[in-house]
């Protein structure tokens, strides 16, 4: 059964190839249906793989399927192979599962777009790449998927490429990710030099034999790669801009799947991090700072998608905080629940944007729950989940992370707690601005051109059905890993063969854990209460300082450096090439020509001049060689 694992990525690849060949002819909505079918079949195969794996003894839940030798050279062979183990199948399950829902949603969302079939072509290619990333049996196959998802992300962010901002955002995402890819590549070089192999299973077994320096180098460079892909400080800048892409893309790529690839990669490298816990500390600090930083920015955003984008960066920071603290199960747990509720909220925001005729400014929304009841209710469930209100899924996974952080350092825990408060605050703000309060869209109705009777409307069922499913998952997803007894920690048991030996187990007592959970819940409730009094009751003025709205001006500083001194440096180099290097060449050429003009008086033509040049030069050189005693 498990030997069919290659089918998981092969099906979306088939979808891509079919759409490439006949996509435009299939048109709308059949090309979308085809793509959805491929994603759904891939999900079906993944479920089958899951049960096949489950039927094995826990220690035998590792299966490598090699298709062919990809790159043989010297004593290196990198196989084109897949690794089916609890980690990869967990990832594949939610990638294909949520992927299918988002495909379905996109059939409705992209309705009427002239490039309808092109969109699904990219979407299938993305799912294929993402599955290569998580199922690869070695770092290089993962890297293939890694760059593949980056490329698809580029295509999809700049999908509406006639818009300049979309084209620029796509390019920015690709180039920034490449900075991370540099780290990933260097990490592979270190690994290969030390172990002679890039296979994950080999790495897992032999990581303990690595010297501290090498292990640190591998972990650190891998983390650079992870920080690029998963939008961590200082490389996060591409993700807010990536919201230029169609909203299903934001949900699939820039919330649920691709951006979590960095967390996945670091979990794969848990054995290396185990050798050098110092690098774990670095990762935890970067994660915590990113979580806090992005949360502060989210509180002052007015674009419905920008809030969610910064929120995603912040939640990814949580996951890295967990990875750095050695709480790998918590990281994966939060990755899964986050995929549920963040995909839900992105799709919900897409439904709102759709219903509001492409309006994204929350200041022009309000009271939409009356007109978009399904969207509103599902979004509210997502809000409760991310805000950490028990018993919704986010509460459980965030709690696990905070517990892990406490084990690493109370300071990190405190940062995580403040972030939790801010998260509850800005999400409450968003829910109120969009779905409650006054209906501010009426006063702006005339701006929407011909729609004299502009009225937001609920989305079609094909968009709402995925919302309902995701809302269900966001509500009960916590059940994957309830902390009560060993028996309820399903995910922990499941992942035990992969990360068990590297997991840092918390020494906090049951009572202590309860206390931490209470603290987190109280923080969430405070956040909700403050936002409620500001935005619903309007008892206090809004706290939206300019500096936060502009993201602490970090992006601006980078941009002005790139556009200023950075560009200047490039210009000077190119100018030097034209004026100095080539200038010198031309000067020599001209001088020779001057001499040539003298010689020409003796000679008759150019060709002979060259011949003479060669002859004289050769003789002179021969003389020189002889005089040096070479001959």
């Amino acid at each position, binding site marked *: 059964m498990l030997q069919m694992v290659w089918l998981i990525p092969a099906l979306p690849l088939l979808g891509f190839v079919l759409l490439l060949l006949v996509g435009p002819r299939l048109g709308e909505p059949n090309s979308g249906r085809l793509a959805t079918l491929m994603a759904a079949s891939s999900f079906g195969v993944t479920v089958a793989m899951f049960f096949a794996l489950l039927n094995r003894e826990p220690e035998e839940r590792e299966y490598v399927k090699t298709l062919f030798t990809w790159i043989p050279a*010297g004593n290196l062979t990198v196989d084109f192979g897949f690794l089916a183990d609890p980690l990869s199948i967990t990832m594949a399950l939610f990638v294909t599962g949520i992927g299918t829902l988002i495909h379905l949603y996109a059939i409705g969302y992209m309705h009427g777009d002239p490039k309808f079939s092109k969109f699904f072509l990219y979407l299938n290619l993305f799912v294929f790449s993402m599955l290569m990333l998580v199922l690869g049996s070695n770092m290089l196959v993962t890297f293939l998927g890694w760059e593949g998802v980056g490329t698809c992300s580029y295509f999809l962010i700049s999908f509406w490429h006639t818009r300049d901002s979309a*084209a620029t955002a796509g390019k920015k995402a690709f*180039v920034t990710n490449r900075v991370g890819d540099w780290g990933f590549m260097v990490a592979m070089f270190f690994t290969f030099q030390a172990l002679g192999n890039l296979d994950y299973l080999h790495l897992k077994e032999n990581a303990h034999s690595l010297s501290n320096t090498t292990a640190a180098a591998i972990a650190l460079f891998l983390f650079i790669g992870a920080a690029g892909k998963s939008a961590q400080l200082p490389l996060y800048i591409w993700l807010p801009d990536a919201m230029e892409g169609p909203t299903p893309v934001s949900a699939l790529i820039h919330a649920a799947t691709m951006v979590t690839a960095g967390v996945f990669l670091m979990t794969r490298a848990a054995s290396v991090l185990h050798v050098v816990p110092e690098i774990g500390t670095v990762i935890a600090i970067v994660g915590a700072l990113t979580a806090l930083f992005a949360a502060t920015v989210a509180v002052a955003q007015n674009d419905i998608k920008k809030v969610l984008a910064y929120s995603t960066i912040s939640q990814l920071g949580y996951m890295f905080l967990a990875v750095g603290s050695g709480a790998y199960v918590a990281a994966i747990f939060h990755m899964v629940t986050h995929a549920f509720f963040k995909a839900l909220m992105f799709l919900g925001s897409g439904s709102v944007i759709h219903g509001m005729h492409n309006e994204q400014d929350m200041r022009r929304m309000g009271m939409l729950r009356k007109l978009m009841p399904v969207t509103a209710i599902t979004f509210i469930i997502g809000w409760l989940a991310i805000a950490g209100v028990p018993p919704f899924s986010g509460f459980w996974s965030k709690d696990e992370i905070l517990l892990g952080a406490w084990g690493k350092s109370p300071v990190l825990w405190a940062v995580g707690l403040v972030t939790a408060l801010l998260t509850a605050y800005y999400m409450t703000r968003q829910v109120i601005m969009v779905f409650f309060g006054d209906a501010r869209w009426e006063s702006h109705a005339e701006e929407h051109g011909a729609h004299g009777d502009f009225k937001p409307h609920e989305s079609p069922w094909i968009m709402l059905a995925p919302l309902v499913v995701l809302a269900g998952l966001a509500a009960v997803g916590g059940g994957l890993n309830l902390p009560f007894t060993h028996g309820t920690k399903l995910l922990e048991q499941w992942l035990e063969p992969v990360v068990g030996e590297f997991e840092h187990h918390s020494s906090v007592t049951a009572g202590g854990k309860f206390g931490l959970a209470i603290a987190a819940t109280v923080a969430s409730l405070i956040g909700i209460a403050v936002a409620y009094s500001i935005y619903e009751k309007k008892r206090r003025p809004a706290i939206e300082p300019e500096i936060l709205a502009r993201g602490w001006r970090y992006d601006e500083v980078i941009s002005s450096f790139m556009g200023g001194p950075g560009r200047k440096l490039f210009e000077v180099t190119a100018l030097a090439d034209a004026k100095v290097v080539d200038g010198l060449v031309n000067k020599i050429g001209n001088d020779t020509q001057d001499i040539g003009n003298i010689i020409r008086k003796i000679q008759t033509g150019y060709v002979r001049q060259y011949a003479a040049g060669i002859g004289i030069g050769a003789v002179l050189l021969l003389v020189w060689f002889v005089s040096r005693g070479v001959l």
Partner: protein
Amino acid sequence: MLLASEAVASPFPLLTALVLLPLVGACVVAALPRRRPEITRLVGLLFTVGTGALSIYLLAKFRAGEAGYQFESKHEWIPSWGAGWHVGIDGISLFMVVLSGILFPLALVAVKPHHNEKAYYAWLLVLEAGVIGSFVSLDLLLFFLFFEVVLVPMYFLIGGWGYDKRIYAATKFFVFTVAGSALMLVAMVATAALYNKEYGRYTFDLVELTTGGSLPYRSARLLFLAFAVAFAVKVPLVPFHTWLPDAHTQAPTAGSVILAGVMLKLGTYGLIRFGIELFPEASHHYRHGLMVLAVIGIIYGAICATMQTDLKRLVAYSSVAHLGFIVLGTFALTTTSGNGAVLQMVNHGVSTGALFLMVGMIYERRHTRQISELTGLQKVAPIFAGAFTLVMLSSIGVPGLNGFVGEFLILLGSFRTARWYVVVATVGVILAALYLLWAYQCVFHGEPDEANKTFPELKLSEGLVLLPFAVLIVVCGIYPKPMLDRIEPSMTRILQRVEAEVPNFVNPDSADATEGEGH
């Protein structure tokens, strides 16, 4: 007259035929009436396709897993000097020959010259003979002959069918290369003379020179430098590169394709064949100097590329960066990086060749190559844009496509002997994305203006020319194993020469391999 050679001569002198076929073609074309351009085109095409088919036949008949030269044939030429018509190919030159065999018919069929067709096709065929001759020569003088022959048709192609500054560019190209090869000629003569002094007979035969015994290191190092300069100009390595952007920009499209696809490889191929193989100790001695230039080229070429306003110049500078990777892989002196370097020669030929073709198609339509004058082409010509995207991603080095495999092997292999060079060189991978995506955004994204609104979509005939490129880009990216199986034994053999001559040098790949066998 056949020498009683110990080398196993193939029953039919395939390689000789491969060199002569385009030459005969050139003569036939030259003899055709001037008034019938379509016939000259057809004859030219026939001969290049025939040569291409023959090169594919060679590929099929080539015995994988063997390190030495195959299809050897050897005839006397100037016996008293020890110079002969000695041709043969190993796994390295094999792919150079096949690459030439494939690129020439494609370049020929892709573009029609606007005047004097007869001379154009004749020169193109002479060029093909010269290029293939260079790759199959196993005799120093013979190689030099072909290496120089190549210049003449290229000079006339640029000068005769190029753009406004063609004479300047052609002359610059010619003078640069001749200056370099003058040095090489001297070094060749000196090599034969030195060999005579040591071993008592004159020979220009590469196989004899490399198997007969080594030259004194001090002299060999000087000779290596002379060869290296000649090849560095050809590659080109910074700071000898400034002829390249001019030549590329001014050359007609077919000229650019051949120049980038095949002729630059004469430099990198030469560095392996007449650098490392002929002077192993000296190559090892000067490896750092060459790797420094290579890494400078990678970064410098990429930075200059980002600042170009002419699409063709941008691609030309990207070549400087890509060729830097190849030289880095060559002089890192590991099997892995060397394999990657040879693979990258082919990959660069394919992807840059395709880029030049497409830039040529843009010029045919819009009569400009200025990036600022082109915009929004993806909206009016989505298939054209899609094809360009594929080639661009291959050039950027996205895994799954051909460009990545070579680049990755180069970096991975070089990391073992030249770690910090690689850490810097890998930055070039970021920059490659920067300049190509920037250009792509300017040219293809956005709303098309008046001038670009009527940009015609990719024609079927153009698509058919690009199809082989696309197939190679994808196939070589996913299944490069057959190529590597043929390259590797030859690369290992050449590096064994370095191991034999340099006591403390170990090719990390071969060392581990024996260790692996011991298990």
